[in-house]
Structures are given as structure tokens and as C-alpha cells.
């Protein structure tokens, strides 16, 4: 019999090494799970998209700095069974007990269905409307970012020379319509003759259509542009390249065009998430329904860019002080939609905290565009 190419000795050495490697690689997993608190973040897009997902990833980065907390993150998770399984995977493999699945479509049915199965896990969702019939271990939070967009509008109102401003929007849904309306109403607080043209791209991440829409807005004479899409980077770069001023959204986009950037409506999830995690670490419970605005630190403004005039800075600061007092009213009667129909009668007013605003279905007078 010929000699085996692998001797018994080398086989034993190799298998011992392999076993050792396996043990070593599985050891940190167990050790990590024994940590104090593991928090999972799930994003629908790339976490460096200069937009919605980045704003949440910045929040996750703030949570990472809290001692005794381990953060696990996963990006580009679609709103399908994939998110259910991602949540379960974080619970089963990482020992996560506090989850932030951040995309709107994760809420119903995925979070609502999974929560009863894992009663010891807390599910915190951004943008959903939690109601008392929903599971107790689910919470929903959101910020009144429309007030920050209103401040964007004030800067835009001062900066525009053509009296036309433009808005690139994803879908005609309440959260987006509210922002479009606030952008124009802010600008009209400067000059009531200003109009705002809106183009809907049809989906949350459509870079090519977003660039086309921005170009058509510039062609139509709009000289201040903002956007409500998941990643406003393309809109900002295209608009600035065409010489228009820009107002940011979701995250700070000033680095893309510092000279053209007026200001921006930013989420401040770092503060919100730090508060939530610290409450959990102390053994407390996060409220099931949480909302907050500029005053509560849920949203913030990008620092004013160099292009703003002194008059713009003055009015911006004055209105911001009013908003910081809370319950600021932008939507008050009499107000008509852009088809001439009265939507808010005289004497009726909706403060920023009014839940009725979360089902807005109209564009106010002065917005050029259609909801359908």
C-alpha cells in the first residue's frame, strides 16, 4: 500500500487548528450577546445616501458612543418578508432587544405581526401611527419637520429673484404634501406673489428622474430648489450646477455646494435615539406614541449658508424663536387649495401638533402641480 498523502499527524494538527478557529470565531458572538444592550438599526436604502437613511445612521452613530451599548446595522432591506427576517435575525443571532426598523413600510404588517412573537423586544418605528390596539412593545415616533421646511421656505423667499421656487417630490402622500405646502407658505411669508412648482418622480429613489425633474424646474425659471426624496443628493448637485439656490432635506447637504446652500431641514435622530436608549438602560419604558419638533430637538436646521441676505437671517431667526415656543400655526383659515376650493375655513387653525395634519391630501394655492 502506498503512503497516504496526508499523514495522520498532519491531519490531526489541521483538524485541531480548524476546531480551534471555529471555537474562537464563535466565542466573540456569545460574548457580545452577553453585553448590556444590543440595539439594531434597519435601513431601506444605503446608509450614506445624504438623506433619509443617512439621518438615521447618524442617529445610530450617536447611540454607539453610549457605554454598554452594542449597535448592529443593516442597510438596503426591502419592505417585504426580508425585514421580518432581518429583525428576527438581529434578535436571534445578535441578541438585540431594542430595534429601530426605520422605513415607513416596515410598520404594517411586518412590525405589527412580529412584535407579539417577541414580547421582550422593543420595536421603535419611525413615522407610523401607533394606536392603542397595536402591541404594547411597539412604539412610533416622528418629528414635525414641516416646521423646519417652513423655515427653508423663508430663506427661499428671500433668495428667489424670479419669484418661482421648485420642489422635487417622491409621491403625493401626506408627509410630502405637508412639506411642499410649508415650503411655499414659508416663502409667501416673505412675498405673497411667490409660486412653487412641484414635480413628483413617483418613487423614493429615482436618481435619473430626480435629475430630469430638477432640470425642468430650472428650465421653468425656478431659482431655489428643494426636495423630498430618500436621497436628495442628485437634486442638490443638479440644481446647484444649474446655478439655483438649494435648501436641504433629511440631512445636511451643504458639503455638496456650500455657496448655493441656504439652509436645510434636518432630522436630529442622534438626540432622539440617545434619549430612547438611555431610558431603556435605566429600565424605563419609551412612550408608545412620540412626536416632537424643533423645540423638542427632533429636527434641526443646517447652519445658514453665506448666500443668505441679512433680511433673510433676521426673519429666519425671528420665526425660529416663535416655533421654538411650540404649537406654531402655519395652516390656518381662510386657506384655499390650488384648485380654488376652500380647505380651511376662516377662524380654524391647525397647530403643528395636530394629528389631522398627518392625513393632508391637498396642495395649497400657489403650488403648481397636482396630487394625482
Amino acid at each position, binding site marked *: 500500500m502506498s503512503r497516504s498523502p496526508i499523514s495522520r499527524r498532519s491531519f490531526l494538527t489541521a483538524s485541531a487548528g480548524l476546531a480551534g478557529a471555529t471555537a474562537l*470565531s464563535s466565542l466573540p458572538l456569545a460574548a457580545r450577546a452577553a453585553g448590556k444592550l444590543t440595539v439594531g438599526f434597519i435601513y431601506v436604502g444605503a446608509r450614506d445616501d445624504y438623506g433619509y437613511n443617512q439621518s438615521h445612521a447618524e442617529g445610530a452613530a450617536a447611540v454607539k458612543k453610549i457605554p454598554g451599548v452594542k449597535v448592529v446595522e443593516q442597510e438596503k432591506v426591502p419592505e417585504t418578508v*426580508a425585514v421580518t427576517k432581518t429583525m428576527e435575525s*438581529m434578535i*436571534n443571532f445578535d441578541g438585540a432587544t431594542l430595534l429601530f426598523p426605520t422605513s415607513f*413600510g416596515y410598520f404594517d*404588517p411586518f412590525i405589527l405581526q412580529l412584535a407579539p412573537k417577541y414580547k421582550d423586544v422593543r420595536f421603535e418605528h419611525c413615522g407610523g401611527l401607533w394606536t392603542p390596539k397595536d402591541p404594547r412593545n411597539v412604539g412610533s415616533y416622528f418629528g414635525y419637520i414641516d416646521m423646519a421646511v417652513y423655515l427653508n421656505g423663508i430663506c427661499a423667499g428671500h433668495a428667489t429673484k424670479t419669484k418661482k421656487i421648485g420642489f422635487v417630490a417622491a*409621491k403625493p*402622500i*401626506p408627509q410630502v404634501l405637508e412639506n411642499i405646502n410649508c415650503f411655499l407658505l414659508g416663502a409667501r411669508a416673505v412675498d405673497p406673489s411667490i409660486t412653487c412648482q412641484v414635480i413628483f418622480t413617483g418613487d423614493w429613489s429615482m436618481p435619473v428622474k430626480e435629475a430630469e425633474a430638477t432640470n425642468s424646474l430650472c428650465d421653468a425659471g425656478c431659482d431655489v430648489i428643494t426636495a423630498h426624496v430618500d436621497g436628495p443628493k442628485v437634486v442638490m448637485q443638479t440644481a446647484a450646477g444649474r446655478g439655483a439656490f438649494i435648501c436641504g432635506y433629511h440631512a445636511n447637504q451643504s458639503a455638496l455646494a456650500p455657496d448655493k446652500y441656504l439652509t436645510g431641514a434636518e432630522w436630529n435622530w442622534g438626540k432622539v435615539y440617545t434619549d430612547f436608549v438611555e431610558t431603556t438602560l435605566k429600565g424605563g419604558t419609551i412612550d408608545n406614541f412620540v412626536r416632537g419638533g424643533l423645540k423638542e430637538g427632533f429636527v434641526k436646521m443646517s447652519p445658514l449658508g453665506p448666500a443668505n441676505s441679512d433680511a433673510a437671517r433676521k426673519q429666519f431667526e425671528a420665526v425660529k424663536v416663535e416655533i421654538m415656543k411650540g404649537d406654531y400655526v402655519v395652516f390656518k383659515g381662510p386657506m384655499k387649495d390650488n384648485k380654488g376650493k376652500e380647505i380651511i375655513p376662516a377662524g380654524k387653525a391647525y397647530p403643528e401638533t395636530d394629528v389631522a395634519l398627518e392625513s393632508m391630501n391637498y396642495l395649497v394655492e400657489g403650488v403648481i402641480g397636482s396630487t394625482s
Partner: protein
Amino acid sequence: MADQAVVMAPRARGRDWRAPLARRAEGIVIPIGASAVGLAFFGLILLAMGKSPVEFYQLVFKAGFGTAFSWQNTLSRATPLLFAGLCVALPARLGLVVIGGEGAICLGGTAAAALGVALGHAPSVIGLPLMAAAGALAGAVWIGAVGALRHWRGVNETISSLLMAYIGIALMNQLVEGPLRDPASLNKPSTAPLPPALRVGDIPGMDVHWGLIVALVACVLCWVLMERTTIGFAARIAGDNVRAAQVQGLPVGRLILGFTALGGAFAGIAGFFEVTAVQGAANASLAAGYGYTGILIAFLARQNPLAVIPVALLLAGFEASSGLVQRHMDLPDATILVLKAVVFVVILVSDTLYGRFRIFTPSRWSQP
């Protein structure tokens, strides 16, 4: 050297049980070998990035197939992939490269949801089959139209099916945000939620819905249709040589229309299960890319409906492991995409190896 007669007439002397196995073994050994080469090659890429391939494959195994939870994770992702794979594999046997299953999934789901809402309080036994039929019909019309355009107007089916997919997705969005929209679905436009009686539940003891069983049965039936019936035989002839098929008097037009429509029907049923078992309503989440993954699956399975099963499970397992790989190895989410692409390319390249290995030649085993 054996004389030609041995090869021409295997019933003559020197018959060996290994001879018929050789050809079949070739179709199994080459793809598996190519997959192994692809995985090894990807391991080299990881090494170049300074990551451990051993840890990577351990994580992929653990998250995709290593625990009971992993299996449920993989299986629950596999259902739409199985149907989408069939949507590409069936027309491919006729030589048609149809890549627009995504549109049929979206429209199938929308049709099923619209009918479900209209049926209201119908019992499950009546409602669900009707909804499945509506989904299948919508998908069959969509992909069948691609086949019809191909046969009667000479329109390239690859291009037309891709463009039809864009139209299908746009049509779904238009319907879901317009006429079919539930006014209560504020920030995610959807059709009205389906009543509980019209929802498909999970297989007992698992959190995987019944769609998986239906999809597996569909794969087996499609294999029987393709390999064991005269219709399938006719389709394969038309796929190999359409002129020869026409000369033989085979109904090429009807075969093309039938098999594209059948493929589309499966994609539509994938949409039906997404709506009734997962989403509970039709909305933009139906366009999750399953239709495109189906192309990959059908090609890796070499258009064999039975091989669609292991390939779809493998890809579903890869997807299930994507999260753990991201979280524990700090690799970008595109890693699994690159892995899939590397394996895909190596398997396509391996097509040139068929007939090159003497060990798989039946004549090699026919000698006494």
C-alpha cells in the same frame, strides 16, 4: 478503438449500466464543480480585501442553513424566487429569453388584491382560488403578450419583456395610488387590506406560508411537462431548431404562446402569494426584484424546472445570510451580490466544458 457501430447501436454488445448515467452526471457534476470554483474565487477576493473566507462561509452557512431559524428564513424567501425562476425557465426551453417576470408579479398581485377586495366576505375555499386565478391570468396575459409579439410580429422577446416589466410596474403604481387606493393608507399607498378569510396562512409548525409547497409542486409538474410529455418534447424541439419543428408540423405559435403564458401565470401566482400571505394588500413593495433574481436562477438551473428548486434555495440562503455578513464582518451589503455574480459568471463559462470530459461520454462506458 471501438468501431462506430457500438456507439450507433448501444443495444449491441458491451452495454453497461454506467453509459446512460454518464450524460446525466455531466449535467450535475459540471454545475456543482463550477459553483465550487466560483465560491473559491470569491474567497480569493475576500482574502485580497483582508477578510477571512472561512469566517465568511461559516456565517453564510450559519445564517442560511445552520439553524432551524435560518432554514425558515431561507425558505420564506424562496417562494417568490421559485415562481420567478419558472417564469424564465419555461420560455427558455423554447429558446426565448424572457426577463420581464417582475411586471407579471406586480400585476398578478394587483389583480389578486383587487379581486379579493371586491369579493369582500367570500369564504376562503371560493375566494382564494379565484384570486389565484386572477393573479395567474394577469401574469399569463402580460408574458403571453411577449410571446405573441415574438411569434406574430417578430419583436425581440428579451427587449419587449423588459419594457413590459416597466409598464407593468408603472401600471401597478397608477392603480394602487389611484382607483384602487385605500384612502386610509396614508403614507404608503395600498389597496384596501384583505379580509382575514382571504389571507393565506403558514404551514403548521413553521413560519413559512403555503406558497412554498405550491411552488415546489409547480416545479415538479413543470419538469414532468417538459421532460415526460409530447408537448414538452415538441417545445424542446422548437427551442432547438424552429425550422425543423415547423417542417415537422409542430404548432410553434401555439407552443410559444402557451409556454410564455404559463411562465407568466407562475409569476402572477408569486404576486398572489406576496399579497395574500405577506403584504395583506397590493402596494409598491411587490416590485422587490424577485423577477430579476428569477433570471439568475433559471440560468444557473440550466432551464431545468427541477434544478430551479436547489438553485432558488441556495440563492435564498445567500440572501438570508446577507445581514449577518454585513453586521459581523463589516462588509457592504453588495457583498452577496458580488458573490452571486461571480458564481453566475463561472457557471456560464462552464457551458463551454460540456462534451470535453471523456468520463462523461457514454461510449467510454459502452466497451466490454
